[in-house]
Structure formats: structure tokens, C-alpha cells
């Protein structure tokens, strides 16, 4: 479904990704793991069109998207839940959800879709008039995921959805990710919580200083001695 092929990405003159390649197939949950500064966020931002690769290509179902502007890429079917949630300060939960359906193709069955995301995160239902940035971290993450889902993506990318959340809330968020995947959503997940992420995903890629150094089935990686010592603290 999504193919990232040998991309090189720079911040100014500093290279952040080196010949990075990976793919996500229809219906999979794929995880990108790696320590701080490995290039996970950079990879996701490049797919979203917030950064553009200097060389290499990115395709979604065969269609090139590495030259398209970010809003077009959302329209093509890739949504991102950004690191740090990035909700619009001062905007109510209701307005945030409404704006989630901004794309013309998402407006069509807006009411039904908003009802659907509220059934995934019932806690948001009681907070519709509250300003998004005054909610708890967990609620904000739920809203950020809802906003992304409302653009009706084929592929949902989540950048560290568990960051700064209490363990129960993390469970809750991961349950929802599993649930929407079972309903057919393809998922690309970035996580520091490697144990959790490998448990949830089908396959994984390990990034180190901008290079893909390992890849494979999540189960196999969980038993890989190097992965164990570097990321699982075993």
C-alpha cells in the first residue's frame, strides 16, 4: 500500500534520513522503532509532505506522493496524528472534530463519522464544548486521533501516541488502535514504548541515526538479542 523507497531527507544541510526504505501493506500495523533522534518523526513528516525528500520516492498504491503538498496527501488518504498532538489552542472539541471533516470527501457522511469516533472515545462526548487545549493529556490524544480519523484515511500514521500518558490511558489508546485496525484501517505507528508497539504490530523497522538497521516480523524482533538489550531493557 505505502512504499517508501530510498529517501534521503535533509534539514538545511544536515542529513536526517539516509536511503530509508520501508513498506506498509494493506491491513497491517507496522511500527517504526528507534531511540531519540533516530529519524522516526522525520520519516512520518516526509510521508505527510511536511518535509520533502531530496531523492527517493514515496508511493501510495502506486501513486507518487513525494511531490504533492501536504493537504493533497491527506486527500489521497494518509492521515497523521502528530507528535505532541498539536491541537488548535482555544478551539472547542466540537469545532476540532468539525474541522477534522474539512475535506469535501469527508464532509459527506460527517455526522455518522463523528458519531463513530465518539463511540471509540466516549470520554470526548462529555467535553464537546471544552477548549481542546484545556483537556487532560489522554483526552487530547483521543481528540487528535479522532481528528485524523475524520479525514477518512486509508492509512493512519501515529507519532508516539503514548507519550506522557498514564498507563491505563495508554492501554485504552492502544486498544482503540487495535480495534480500528480490525475494522480494516492500515496503520503506521511510531513508538518509544517498544514493548507495547511490537506486541501490537505485525511487522517493524528499527531506525538508528537515520538508517534502517533491522526489519522483520514483530515477534521475531522481540526475541532479537540486540533489540532486547537496546530497546526492551532485557
Amino acid at each position, binding site marked *: 500500500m505505502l512504499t517508501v523507497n530510498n529517501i534521503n531527507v535533509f534539514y538545511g544541510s544536515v542529513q536526517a534520513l539516509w536511503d530509508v526504505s520501508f513498506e506498509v501493506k494493506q491491513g497491517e500495523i507496522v511500527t517504526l522503532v528507534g531511540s531519540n533522534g533516530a529519524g522516526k518523526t522525520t520519516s512520518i513528516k516526509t510521508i505527510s509532505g511536511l518535509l520533502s525528500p531530496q531523492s527517493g520516492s514515496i508511493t501510495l498504491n502506486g501513486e507518487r506522493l513525494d511531490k504533492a503538498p501536504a493537504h493533497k496527501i491527506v486527500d489521497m488518504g494518509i492521515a497523521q496524528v502528530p507528535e505532541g498532538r498539536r491541537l488548535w489552542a482555544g478551539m472547542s472539541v466540537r469545532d476540532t472534530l468539525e474541522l477534522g471533516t*474539512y475535506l469535501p470527501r469527508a464532509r459527506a457522511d460527517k455526522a455518522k463519522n463523528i458519531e463513530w469516533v465518539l463511540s471509540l472515545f466516549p470520554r470526548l462526548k462529555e467535553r464537546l464544548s471544552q477548549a481542546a487545549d484545556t483537556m487532560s493529556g489522554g483526552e487530547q490524544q483521543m481528540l487528535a486521533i479522532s481528528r485524523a480519523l475524520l479525514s477518512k484515511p486509508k492509512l493512519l500514521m501515529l507519532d508516539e501516541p503514548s507519550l506522557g500518558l498514564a498507563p491505563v490511558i495508554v492501554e485504552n489508546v492502544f486498544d482503540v488502535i487495535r480495534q480500528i485496525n480490525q475494522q480494516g484501517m492500515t496503520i503506521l505507528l511510531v513508538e518509544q514504548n517498544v514493548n507495547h508497539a511490537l506486541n501490537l504490530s505485525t511487522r517493524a523497522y528499527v531506525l538508528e541515526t537515520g538508517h534502517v538497521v533491522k526489519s522483520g516480523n514483530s515477534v521475531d524482533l522481540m526475541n532479537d538479542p540486540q533489540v532486547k538489550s537496546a530497546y526492551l531493557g532485557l
Partner: protein
Amino acid sequence: MCFQISILNSQFQILMSFDTFLNLFAASILTAGLYATMSYGLALIYGVMKLTNLSHAGVLMLAAYGTYWLNTLGISPYLAPFIVVPLWFGIGIVWQHTLVKRIMLMPPIASLLFFFGIWLIMQNFAYLVFKSDIRSITNEATLLTYKLGPLVLSQNRLIVFFAGITALVSLQLFLTRTYQGRAIRALAADAEAARLSGIDTDRISALAFGLGIALAAFAGCLMALIFAFDPEFGRSHLLKSFCIVVLGGLESFVGVALGAIMLALAENFSIQFMPAALQDMVSFVLLVIVLLTIPNGLMSLLKGKK
């Protein structure tokens, strides 16, 4: 009237009749309506694009001339906004797509100089076309007043007030109730998150810029009904607009309204104690005081955080 309010000055006791007080208060509210309209365009453009549009003053001035010029062609100054405002909206959009888009990527000093330059060009254009004579629009309605008990209200000022409020309320409804309007707010709050929701930020920036310019043009049309103007017109109003947005805290609608009321009250009441020629200084003094004492504006006091 026997009822009097006394205000203690350091040396004198200044007495102001209740009638005078009421009239000054009413005048302040009417002025505040115009001031809010005039400054909201500046606040909108700053909020969405983080650009300080110094050419705001030039738009006020040229829109006033536009109304004047249409009047000489026989078009009522009350209808002029329907021609002048859409025109400026269009100019704003073209501007954004051609020049401003590039300026946004540069350091703030570049955009300040850019807009200052545009303002100078507008002034020179006005000198060239309209000459330096002071113009004003007068017709039978100019001096019309209504008496409401002790209140004496000028018809044109009432029209200006209600027209301004109508524009601001419509804009507010647009910003809170429509996709495009909400997209403008999203862009102001977090542009990258807006792009990730499928919002074409170039298009929405242009819309916001066009609206900001259109609102300035509308304020200019309204000003032509009650002020005399020449090509320098707009300078003191630019400063007043700054004062209001700083008072109100940037990017907040209620804040701008509050700031406008504060400035209008300060101006109208101060002329009781000092020469009218110094009235334009009030906004400057207020601006400095606010910047030194409550840099985040009145809204920060209301929210209890400073």
C-alpha cells in the same frame, strides 16, 4: 441638571454635569464600534500570518478616497462600501498570492519594511491623484442629529457604529460557523496541524489576508462619513489600532472590543481636561503604559494570568 459628578484633579475640582457625562459615554461607545472595526483587520492578519500590516493605514485612507470619489460620481457614500470593500478584498487576495506569500518566509523586519513601503506608495498615489487638499463628504445628513432625552446623537455616527458592529458580528459568525472560517482559526493556532487536516494553507492565508484588508477598507469607507481626510490620513488610526490590539491582547475578538472601548473612553474623557489637539497622544501614552504594565493585554487580567 443639579446632579453632578466631581472628579478630583491634583489642584482643581473639575465638575462635569451628568448630561455631559452621559453624552461623552455614548460618544465613546459609538467611537469604539468604529475603532473595533478598524483594528480587527490588523489583528486578523497578525493572528493568522504573524505579519504587522503597516499598509493598514494606507488602506483606510484610500478607501476613504474611494468613497469620496464615488460620491463625486453621484454614488451615495452609504452604498460605496458595496463597491470599495469587495475591490479591496480582491486586491488583498492578489497581494497575498503574489508578494506577501514570499514576505512571510522572511524575517519580520523584511515584512515591516515591505508594508511600510506599500503604505508610502499608497500615499504618493493619493497625492498624485487626489492632491494634498483636505477632503470631506458632506450632505444634508451630515449634520443630522437625534435627541434621546439628554443624549444628542449624530445620525452618521450611529450609522457608522451599527454598520461596524454588523460587519464584526458577521465576521465572527463566519469564523466560528463555517469550514473556511474555522480553517482560518486553525491556521492561526497551528498551521502545520491545519495542513495535516487537509487545509490548503496558501488558499486560507489569502482568504484571511483578503478579509483583513477588506475590513480595513470598510472602516475607511465608514470614516469618510465622519472625518475629513488627506493623503496622510490613517497614520494616527494605525497607532490607535496598535494600541487597541495591544490592549486587547492579539488574536482575540472580545479583547479587541474591550481595547476599543478603553481607548475611546480615554480619548473622549481626556479632552475634558486637555486641549483637543493632544487627543491623538492619548493612544500613544496608553500604548506605552499598557506595554510596560500588562504586556499581554486586558484579556490576560480577565483570565487571571499575567
